[in-house]
């Protein structure tokens, strides 16, 4: 049983799924932290440093770091030309999470824009990943 769980966990597709979920979670945590510490009147707030006062931002940092390790584990087994397009699912999960968890009102025009960005990413996925690999 332990061997099965271990093999399942180390599978690159599992690592990619965890990476995408954690990246989405990190964005939500960072937005919660930003919302908590927002002070548009302060000139310093553009630097984002004021966000460090929120524990949500620290959870967001943790989720981002773990997600990065999952991404590196994914790239050890899967080529970037496959991992990159699949990883783009985060562009669906984040707006959906904003709508469900943050209660953001997403107007049809914004959904159309998000859909176009996703479509564009699907079109460029392979050439962009190849280019990034070369760079």
């Amino acid at each position: 049983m332990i061997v099965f769980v271990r093999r399942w966990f180390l599978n690159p597709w599992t690592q990619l799924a965890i990476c995408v979920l954690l990246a989405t979670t990190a964005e939500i945590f960072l937005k919660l932290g930003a919302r908590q510490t927002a002070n548009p009147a302060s000139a310093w707030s553009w630097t984002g440093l004021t966000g460090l006062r929120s524990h949500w931002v620290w959870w967001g940092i943790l989720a981002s770091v773990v997600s990065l390790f999952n991404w590196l584990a994914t790239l050890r087994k899967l080529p970037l030309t496959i991992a990159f397009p699949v990883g783009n699912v985060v562009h669906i999960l984040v707006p959906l999470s904003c709508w469900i968890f943050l209660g953001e009102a997403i107007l049809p025009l914004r959904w159309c824009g998000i859909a176009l960005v996703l479509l564009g990413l699907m079109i460029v996925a392979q050439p962009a990943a190849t280019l990034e690999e070369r760079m």
Partner: protein
Amino acid sequence: MTLFAALLIFVTVSCFVAGQILLKRAMDIIAQPTSSRLHATLVFTSAIVVFAMNFFINIGLLQRFDLSYFFPFQGLSVVIIAFAGAFILHEKVSLRLTIGSIVISLGVILVSIS
């Protein structure tokens, strides 16, 4: 959106792309048998600094905009990679990359006016 906010969005997306390229360059240097540890450390540190800039500017932007509004702009990273590839590597930008970049840009324009 103000011109300053648009500029910051461009800076943060560019920082993200630059950080990725520097991180990959650091890994390539480490993988070489005759690599200089100092050189690899410098490139790696630059990647971390650039990523940190990207992170904090993101927080500053998130304090002002909805996440569902700001997040699609990250799709522009692919457009910047295409242009960086053309300028740095003198790559010929493929038709597919050009069409995809235009579609992403149109999507970002729709989001920005929403």
